[in-house]
């Protein structure tokens, strides 16, 4: 029971990050039908920039309160990510707006490689460690531990998602975004400049990506030029799981995927433990005895596999996702 609750807490934390990133995929897809594969790299850039600013400030202005240093890092990361996403859309995707679907998709993959290589040049190929500004203090909840960093991640993600829902549901911009997603031509007839709306989707997604980047980096304590790839793919999976193009779906998909992964990682060792089997070879029996009866075929390092297992299942059994209505017919 404790493991269960513990894994739910861990899953919720990571799931919040997935959800924030998934929103960026889903907003862009909802409006222009593009899977922006470079979105994961925007998260990575966010993490890297935040890391640089934070370490830089720690070197020069060590006396500043930790909160100020982190906020400064976040602020710069958001600016950089927004600038990158805005230009990326304008330079790489906009000219291809009426091209066949495959063209912008391949361009997106190209953009992701470009961003990775830029990061490689700027930050090098080594793992960078996040300075311990906050020592995570665990709080015990029903026997499971939740650190204040985890709480911060979950609460901040929830606030941001709530804010986004308010924008999309209540503001003039938000209504225009939904109108454009539904019918861009008619949206134009309303006086909506759809280029502005599309830029807004990229910009909002990038800002959320920057926050998510800082979150994962603080959570794992490291950042790396390649981190955006897997994270992006998982967030994309989350978006597909919830129903791509659907905001609530991205949030639900993100949280669910985080929880599935955590539970999978928490239990796969026990499930794939061979010591309970009856006819074991002598060597295995010996090994079981040496390892307190715990010899697993798969360890928690198989965590990353679950996301793709989920992706495959969704694509086979419910391609429109949990909350999606229309079957995805676009590339």
């Amino acid at each position, binding site marked *: 029971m404790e493991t269960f609750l513990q894994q739910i807490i861990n899953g919720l934390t990571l799931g919040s990050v997935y959800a924030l990133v998934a929103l960026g995929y889903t907003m862009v897809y909802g409006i222009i039908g593009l899977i922006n594969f470079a979105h994961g790299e925007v998260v990575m850039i966010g993490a890297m920039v935040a890391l640089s600013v934070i370490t830089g400030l720690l070197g020069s202005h060590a006396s500043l309160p930790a909160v100020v240093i982190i906020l400064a890092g976040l602020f710069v990361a958001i600016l950089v990510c927004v600038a990158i996403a805005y230009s990326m859309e304008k330079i790489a995707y906009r000219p291809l707006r009426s091209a066949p679907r495959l063209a912008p998709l391949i361009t997106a993959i190209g953009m992701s490689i470009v961003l990775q290589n830029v990061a490689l040049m700027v930050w090098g190929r080594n793992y960078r460690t996040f300075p311990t500004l906050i020592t995570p203090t665990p709080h015990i909840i029903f026997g499971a531990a939740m650190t204040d960093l985890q709480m911060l991640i979950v609460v901040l993600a929830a606030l941001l998602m709530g804010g986004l829902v308010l924008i999309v549901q209540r503001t003039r911009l938000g*209504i*225009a975004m939904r*109108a454009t997603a539904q*019918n861009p031509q*008619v949206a*134009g*007839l*309303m*006086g*909506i400049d759809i280029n502005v709306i599309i830029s807004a989707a990229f910009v909002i997604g990038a800002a959320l990506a920057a926050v998510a980047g800082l979150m994962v980096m603080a959570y794992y304590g490291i950042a790396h030029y390649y981190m955006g790839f897997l994270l992006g793919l998982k967030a994309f999976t989350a978006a597909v799981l919830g129903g791509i193009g659907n905001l609530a779906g991205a949030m639900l998909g993100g949280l669910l995927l985080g929880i599935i992964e955590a539970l999978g990682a928490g239990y796969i060792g026990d499930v794939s433990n061979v010591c309970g089997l009856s006819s074991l070879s002598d060597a295995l029996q010996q090994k079981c005895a040496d390892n307190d009866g715990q010899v697993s075929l798969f360890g928690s390092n198989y965590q990353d596999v679950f996301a793709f297992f989920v992706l495959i299942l969704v694509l086979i059994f419910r391609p429109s996702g949990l909350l999606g209505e229309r079957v995805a017919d676009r590339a």
Partner: protein
Amino acid sequence: MAAPALLELTRLEVAYGGIHAVKGIDLIVRQGELVCLIGANGAGKTTTLKGITGLQPVKAGKIVYDGADVTGKPAFQLVRKGLSMVPEGRGVFGALTIEENLAMGAYSRRDRVAIKQDIERVFGLFPRLKERRKQTAGTLSGGEQQMLAMARAIMSRPKLLLLDEPSMGLAPLMVQKVFETILTIAAEGVTILLIEQNAKLALEVSHRGYVMESGTITLSGDARQLLSDPKVREAYLGEAV
């Protein structure tokens, strides 16, 4: 004395790739007029409107609106100049509520208080919409959706309103209501270019009319005269002459 032209098309050509759908037409709509453009299926009526609103690139010719050359200008800029269109098939945002649809109609305006008043005003015009204001537009009947599309278009306070087959697919009673609404809007001083399959009704409410056949204007003139023109009676009013 004729009022000044609000919209003037000169030798307008619009094509879809190699398909020449509009082959150089001249058309004029004067301030305060209600002009109709009639013609059979595939004549190029919708394409003409698409050319005017920049939804389909203009191949040749010129569009002058309100004294300025607007050839090739995107739709969203035209709305800000008071040119609004109700597209063929109504184009309501089905997933948005009626109120949200109306708010989008007023997207080009910034005067919040007046927008609120205008919403109440169109609700006065269309009580059905008021009852359903929080409902998504997709749940409305075809006729109600047409009402919403027209209500939404006038939310931008247009000078010129382009209507593409507002009576399409509606029952006779609803067609009646749509035409009454067109007359109400016209009476408020909005200039209208009306595209219709229902040639008889269209000519009855219009000042002038144009007849389009496979991409060209074949007849034009005073609406009453067109109504009694033998060629029109035979081809569009279904009467043997």
